[in-house]
């Protein structure tokens, strides 16, 4: 499958030569094999292939990709470094913009961000920016490249970071780099947020997340796990204890259910529960790990986002015939293209334009199926998307012993509930100033899913970066008026 073209190191290629190089495919685990294991699906570029792919970049003067990236990574710069074989430099470049390049390279929806703006994509295929980002980060991790710490004197300022997901990790990294003392509080027993409990091993190996967490610790960030802010200290109490600022990155961890009959039956799970058991609690290694795995035989997942793909693919790997039902059509699916592609490659069955109306159960209150209605696309709604409308009399039942509800998560209500002067929207998200991520409470900043509602890793990190800059200014007294 690999290209025959030999990498031309150190030798300048002409623009024409570059354009002739095809986009390098990602070596992947065979779908027939991976449907039975939890190993990562894409195997990563080799050094040669990475250089080859990197040399496709024509180094635009006004790069669209940078604008397409929510954190404006200087993409041509790190790609140029890869092309020149300076992999560690590429990683250092990336690190200036994102705390977690190994994660972003794997889970960002590049096709609607950076890569969608790549000039090569106009006529052919865009540069594989995400794959190159992953390559650089993996290379550095494997070669144990501990970054040089920017020598920075301690400012004597203390900041509490609540929630150790991508938003919290970004803020903690940025601020500790700038000499502030950072204390993180995480409710669960491991830091990482959705990266640990939600996104499965075959998409984002947990070792990568823990490596990044350890980097933070080495950097001097203290991380208190098992610590629920709002149940132990409230945000107010944190402020009283002498924190100069508080950052809230508690995410959107409240699972939504459909509200249909039979939803509390045995065998119906929120995607959060299903994935948390498998990932965070490592039930796939049961019985060494004590948490009971769900052992599905016929799994039906409801939803069309990344979460639904992850749940359905996890169910498949646990041995189930796995089906996804989604209300709208394929075009509307919010999941990354790659995930949908991988899912169907692995043999997951999609029932599109299908809406669940009832969970069918037996006398033991166990799931036996999902009753559904077929939908068709009606008139476009205000968002311009054609609204699905039910087809009368089209009821049918899909047999199932496991139903996974992956229709979204709502913001975590605990902090707003226990901090009355933090204002929230009617959806429960925390209201912030867009340019600083400052909340309605002085000294308290927020970013990530708790602000935007369930979104993406990179948007959480983008917001967190804005917050970190603002907090820094606030701490060193540049912006007093907050």
């Amino acid at each position, binding site marked *: 499958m690999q290209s025959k073209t030999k990498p031309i190191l150190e030798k300048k290629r002409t623009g024409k030569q570059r354009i002739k190089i095809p986009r390098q495919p990602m070596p992947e*685990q*065979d779908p*027939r*094999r991976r*449907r*039975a*294991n*939890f*190993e*990562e699906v894409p195997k990563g570029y080799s050094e040669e292939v990475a250089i080859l792919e990197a040399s496709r970049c024509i180094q635009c003067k006004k790069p669209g990709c940078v604008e397409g990236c929510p954190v404006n990574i200087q993409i041509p710069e790190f790609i140029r470094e890869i092309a020149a074989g300076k992999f560690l430099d590429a990683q250092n470049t990336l690190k200036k913009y994102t705390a977690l390049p190994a994660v972003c390279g794997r889970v960002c929806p590049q096709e609607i961000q950076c890569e969608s703006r790549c000039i090569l994509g106009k006529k052919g295929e865009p540069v594989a920016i995400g794959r190159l980002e992953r390559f650089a980060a993996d290379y550095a991790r494997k070669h144990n490249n501990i970054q040089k710490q920017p020598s920075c004197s301690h400012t004597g300022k203390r900041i509490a970071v609540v929630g150790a997901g991508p938003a919290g990790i970004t803020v903690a990294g940025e601020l500790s780099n700038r000499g502030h003392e950072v204390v993180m509080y995480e*409710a*669960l*027993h491991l830091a990482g947020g959705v990266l640990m*409990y939600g996104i499965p*091993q*075959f998409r984002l*190996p*947990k*070792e990568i997340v823990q490596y990044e967490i350890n980097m933070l610790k080495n950097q001097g960030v203290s991380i*208190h*796990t*098992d*610590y*629920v802010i709002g*149940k*132990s*200290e409230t945000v107010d109490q944190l402020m009283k204890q002498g924190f100069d600022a508080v950052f809230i990155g508690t995410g959107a*961890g*409240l*699972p939504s*259910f459909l509200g249909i009959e039979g*939803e*509390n039956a*045995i*065998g119906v*799970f*929120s995607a*959060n*529960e299903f994935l*948390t*058991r498998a990932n965070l*609690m*490592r039930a*796939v*290694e*049961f*019985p*060494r*790990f*004590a*948490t*009971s*795995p769900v*052992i599905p035989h016929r799994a039906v997942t409801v939803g069309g986002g990344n979460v639904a793909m992850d749940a359905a693919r996890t169910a498949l790997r*646990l041995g189930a015939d796995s089906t996804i039902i989604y209300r709208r059509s394929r075009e509307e699916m919010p999941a990354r293209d790659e995930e949908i592609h991988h899912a169907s490659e692995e043999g997951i069955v999609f029932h599109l334009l299908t809406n669940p109306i009832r969970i069918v159960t037996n006398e*033991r*209150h166990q799931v036996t199926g999902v009753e559904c209605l077929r939908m068709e696309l009606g008139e476009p709604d205000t968002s311009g998307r054609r609204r699905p409308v039910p087809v009368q009399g089209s009821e049918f039942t899909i047999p199932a012993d496991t139903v996974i509800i992956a229709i979204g998560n709502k913001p*975590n*209500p*605990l902090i707003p509930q226990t901090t009355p002067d933090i204002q929230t929207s009617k959806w429960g998200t925390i209201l912030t100033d867009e340019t600083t991520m400052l909340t309605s409470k002085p000294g308290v900043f927020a970013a990530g899913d708790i602000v935007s509602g369930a979104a993406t890793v990179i948007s959480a990190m983008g917001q967190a970066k804005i917050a970190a800059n603002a907090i820094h200014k606030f701490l060193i007294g540049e912006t007093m008026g907050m």
Partner: protein
Amino acid sequence: MSTIKLSIDGQEVEVEQGATVFQAAREAGISIPTICDHKDLSPYGACRMCVVEIEGVRGFPTSCTTPATQGMQVSTRTKRLTDLRNCTLELLFSGHPNSCFACPHREPCETHRPQATKAGRSTRCGFCANREECDLREMVLTSERQELKLPVMYSAYKLERDDPFMDRDYNLCVLCGRCWRICEKIHGEPAISIINRGKWSKISTAFDKSHLESGCNFCGACIDICPTGTLMDRYARWQGKPEHESVSACILCPNGCSVKAENKGGKLLAYTMPGFEAEDRLCALGRFGAAQIVNSTKRLTRPLVREDGDQIPMSWDDALQSVGKGLIARRGTVVVVISATTTREERFIYDRLATALQGHLIVLPFEADCETPKIKELSDSVQQGKVQALITNGPLVSPQILKNVEFSLVIDCLESMASQLATIVLPSAILSEVDGTFKTSSGKIRTLSKSSILPGGARPEWMIICLIAKVLGLNGFDFDRAETITSLIQDDPAPEKFEREPRNNCRDIPIRFRGHLVADFVPGLKAFELPTTLVDEAEDEICNGFALLEKKEIAPNMHLLIIEAPQVARFALPGQFVILMAKETSERSPFTLADWDANAGTISLIIEEVGRSSRELTSLTAGDQLAHVSGPLGLPLSIQEKGTIFLGGGCYGIGAIFPLARILHEAGNRVICMIEAASSHLLYWQQELAEVCDELLIATKDGSGGMHGGIQEGVSSVTEKEHINQCIIIGCTFMMQQVSDLTKTFDIPTLVALNPIMVDGTGMCGACRVSIANQTQFACVDGPFFDGHKVDWEELTLRRNAYAPQEIQALPQGIHLTSCLPTSTLKMGD
């Protein structure tokens, strides 16, 4: 031999001379109750349940020791005998948990709690794993006694679970002596006997050594013959009564012992002895290991075919096509290597295949490893290219051969280096999944009959070979059952004799089965120093853990843990809970805060051992660290002045109501606390509670202390005297439901603390959802307190039992709680 005639309950009975009255009755189909008697043991006369009246004989002789004589007139069912037996039964029972029988709520409780709780210590009948098979229980239930006059004397012997394969709780023993008698009968010199006298009589090994050191052979006979739940097979104990038994043979070694395969739902629970005679005995591997091998998580369950370096799971059809291609091209260079512990039919058919492919069959002695000369020879032939294709039914050849040979087909049941290196892997059946015959090393032919369901896509080996032959277009392989092959077998040598005798010494247990190290699949065998590749689970060092300052078993099965957790202690409020993880591999399990000290930074919890997680916690000792303590979680109880508040607690709930009583009392309420337990020796914290409430009431299910009954009875009696403004109940779901149903009729507002299964405990997963007035709520963040009159109890009960089968599987099989859990087949990335 001459016979005699006698009359039993008016029925004419004819028996051989020398029979006892008891045997005569049994033959006539008249059942006399007994505990100590067993048809395969000689009469003992210890339990005195089998007493009868005989005309002309004074007193009440035990029928099991009285020889039947000509013309005897025997009565077995008089009123006086029933009374006498009831007294005997009560006496037998005075040292044994018995409250269930006297409990007024037994029937609803049993429908509510279909499975035994996985507690190591049985403190009541409902918690005994042997419930369905207990003779004693059977007998009491038929006697319909609901009253116990004698005080309960719980000896509180410590649980014995440091030996491989067996759990023992001598608190359940009724001293019938069956165990040591069978041990003596089978092994001559019994490993166990009755020690001490009077109240402290007990079954034990000499000098109280472990069974491992005592010369016990781990044949399991005592477990199978014990009428109570005292002696238990650790692996099978929670799986319930076998539904199906069939006679088969163990082929884990060339002894080929006859066995009784016990199955439930198509799953092998154990191989047990087909009878209680010395020659029926099994070795520890056969008795305890077979089921663990058959049910191993390392079973191969789907065909795998190597493509571009990776083994790809495939359908049987595709895999067989690949096998066909691989073999056809290498006709004449094929070698088949199988182990001697293969059925005769399979050996025959492997041989036929080898011949048809112009190759040859090598049968390896059963324990052989890759160092055998035949294998060395084979290695050379592979090197020289004379052998290009290899078929084998286990990791029988060296990895080198598998790497060098062009094409390798491994037909096997368990994962191994061979299955990892093979070109093609086909999953096969083993032991109780197989039909066929086996010639033992002494030349006897034994029949194996299939009794369990094959895992995934596994198939019997003879069938696999026939399928391969079909793909290859070979004739002479049209068999549809193993039986049809049997008659074709003409000369088959008996396997070489096994020099050691595992049934007489457990250190002689075969090391390998078809090349696999048996201890890799049966972790308990490590106790006999059998080699294994299993590594002791290196305990993840717990850094930043939480120190366990104190641990005490304050009542049987109830443990008080005092843990250093300042962040919890500083913020805890009455009614909140914490999530604990003993180790990094533990579950997140919720426990109600029983007390805390903000200044000292400590919290107190009452933990009842009911399964793996609680066992991990209660097995810690002071000075150990817990991996995680997270909390306080949940909404605290809102404290108001209400007037008279009735607080009811059972099991761990006794501890859980303590902080509530204290604060409600301080808030100016009249607080009545009521605690319940199965029996008075299971109560705790009476003193502590009495100090923080206005009135302390006690109820026991057997009437051994306080009121006879439970919280239900307490509520009723209090309402007769005074008005209750609020009830708050903490305990098992069954009790909370019963009390709620009752207070509804009295119109007393009732709060219950619900305990559904939780995962995170922070509102993130919804595992804990409960229906309250038809609205879904998350117990961990919206609770734990809910209006007891609005809870959907049935849903809660069913949801709580959702993982029962997995819980059983999670219980460790090694000797040490922590070590040697089998690792699973599903692997996380590298």
